[in-house]
C-alpha cells in the first residue's frame, strides 16, 4: 500500500464529505480494510473531523488496519443460515485458522467477520471469501480455500 495510491484515491473525493461511504467502499474493495494512513488524508480532503469520520466508520463496523487484509471471510449468522448450522461453520473456521470472530489476526492477514445476511440465503449456510460466495458444505475444503487465499 503506497501513500501515493491512497492519496490518488482519496483526492477524487476532495471537498465532497457526502462521498465518505463511497470512498470507504472503494478502499474496502482495494485493501479489504480502511488503511490507518487513510484517516488523516480523509480529514484533509473531505473536510471532516476525525470524530465525524470515526463515528461513521465504526457505525458500519469497517475494519481499520495498518496493512491490507489478505483474506476477508464473512460468515452469515442470520436466520436462514442459523437454521443450517452457521454457528458450527464459524467455530470450525476460527478453530482451524486460529482466529477470533470479528478480530483481525495478529499477523494482520485474516478477518473472519460475523455478518447478518449476505442475501445468499437459498444457499445457506452462506460464506463469502473476499466478496465471493463459497459453499460451506465441506468445511475442510473451505479452510483450504482460505489458506490458499492467505498463501
Amino acid at each position, binding site marked *: 500500500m503506497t501513500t501515493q495510491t491512497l492519496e490518488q484515491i482519496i483526492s477524487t473525493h476532495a471537498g465532497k464529505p457526502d462521498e465518505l*461511504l463511497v470512498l470507504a467502499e472503494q478502499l474496502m474493495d482495494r485493501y479489504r480494510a480502511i488503511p490507518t494512513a487513510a484517516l488523516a488524508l480523509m480529514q484533509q480532503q473531505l473536510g471532516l473531523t476525525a470524530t465525524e469520520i470515526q463515528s461513521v466508520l465504526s457505525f458500519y463496523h469497517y475494519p481499520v488496519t495498518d496493512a491490507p487484509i489478505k483474506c476477508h471471510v464473512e460468515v452469515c449468522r442470520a*436466520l436462514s443460515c*442459523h437454521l443450517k448450522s452457521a454457528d458450527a461453520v464459524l467455530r470450525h473456521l476460527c478453530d482451524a485458522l486460529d482466529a477470533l470472530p470479528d478480530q483481525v489476526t495478529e499477523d494482520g492477514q485474516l478477518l473472519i467477520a460475523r455478518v447478518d445476511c449476505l442475501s445468499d440465503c437459498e444457499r445457506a449456510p452462506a460464506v*463469502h471469501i473476499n466478496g465471493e460466495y463459497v459453499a460451506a458444505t465441506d468445511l475442510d475444503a473451505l479452510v483450504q480455500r482460505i489458506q490458499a487465499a492467505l498463501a
Partner: protein
Amino acid sequence: MKPLPAPVLTANAPVADRLREYYLHYPFHALQKALALSPHEIIAELKASGLRGRGGAAYPLGRKWECVLQQPAPVRYIVANGEEGEPGTFKDRVLLERNPLAVIEAMIIAAYTVRARAGYIYLNHSYRQIEQTLQTLLAWLREDQRLGNNLLKRQFDFDIQVRRGPSRYLSGEETALFHALEGRRAEPSSRPPYPTEQGLWRKPTIINNIETLSCVALILEKGSKWFTTLGPVNSHGPKLFCITGDIKNPGVIEAAMDASLRDLIEWAGGAIGDFKGAMVSGPSGCLFLPDDLDKPLTVQNGCGNGTVVVFNDTRCAVDLARHVTDFFFTEHCGQCLPGRESMKQAKSLMDNLEHQPSLAPLQQRYGELHTLLLNSSKCGLCSSGTAMAPALMQAFPADFDRHMHGGCAVCGSAV
C-alpha cells in the same frame, strides 16, 4: 398440488453473461407508453392497478408518487431500495440479475412523472456483480440518450447513480437509507416529515423497493386491468416469495398473493421434517403455525416482503426467540431512548430465561416492551424486532417451560 403460475417478473434467465444482447433487445414498451401519457394519467393507471409496496409496509404506490408530484419543491429524487437486509430475503437480487432494465425503466418513468432529475439505486453490500451490470447498462443508456440531458429528446434531464452500501440491516429503512446515501450513519429520522415531503437531502423523494419498481414497468406495459386479475383485492399483482429454512428446495417462487403457505411449501418440494411454523416476512414479520397453512399470503395476512422461513418440529422455539432477539439487538442503532432501553431489556429477558420462575411474567414483560415500542420508537426496527419472541412464547409454551424447569436437550442446556 396447485399448478404454479407462469412467471412474469422472473421469466428471464440471468443476463450478466449476455448483457449487450439483453440490452439491445429490451423493448422499453412501458416507457414508450408512459411518455404518451400525462403524469396524472400515469398515476391514475398505477392507482387503478392497486400496486402496493413490496418492501414490507405495503404502502399504495400511486398515492406515494402523487404526493411527490404535488410538492412545490423544484428538486425531487427517485430512489430504488435494493438494500435487501431482511434475513431470508434475496428476491431483489434475483430481479436485478434477471431484468435490471425493468427497474431502470420504472425509475425513468417515475422521474418523468414527478419531474425528478436524479435517481439512486442503493444496493446490498454483497451485490458487486449487479453493481457492475448496472454501471454498464447505465453507460449504454447515456450513450443512447435514454439517460442524461434532454432524455429521449423529451426535454427532461434524468440520470441514475448506483451506490453499494456497507452491510447494515437498518440501512434498508427509508430515512436511514437517505442518510447512508448522504455519507452519514444510517440512523432513521422521525416522521413526519415523510420522504415524499422531505427525503434525500430533505427534498421530496420517491423511494420504492426493487420488486415494486419491477411491477411498475409491468403495469404500464400490460395495463392495470391485467395486474388486477392476479391475486385478491388489496393484494394484486405477481409476488416473489423467498422460501428457506427446513425446506427441500429453497429459492425464489413467483406466484400471486392468493397462494397459501401450503402451496409455497409444496412448490418448494415440501418441508424437511414435520412443519412446526414459519416466519412470514422474515424475523420482523409474523408467525404462521400449522393452522395457518391454508391462509392466503395476502397483505392483510402479513405477506410483507414475501420472505418465508420454515422451521420443523426438531427446532426449539427458545433458540429461535433468542436468535431473533440477538439479531435485532445487534442491528438496532440505539439512537432513540425507547429503542435503546427496550432492546437491552428484551435481550436480558431472553439471556436470563432459565432464571425465570414461569413463562407468564416473561411473556407479559416482553409483550409490554413491544407495545411501548409500537407507540414510541423512532422507526420500525425495534418494534417489529420484538414481535416474534412473544409470538413464539404464545405458540410454544412447552419449549419455554422445558428451559425453565430441567433443561432442553435440543439446545443442550441444563438448569
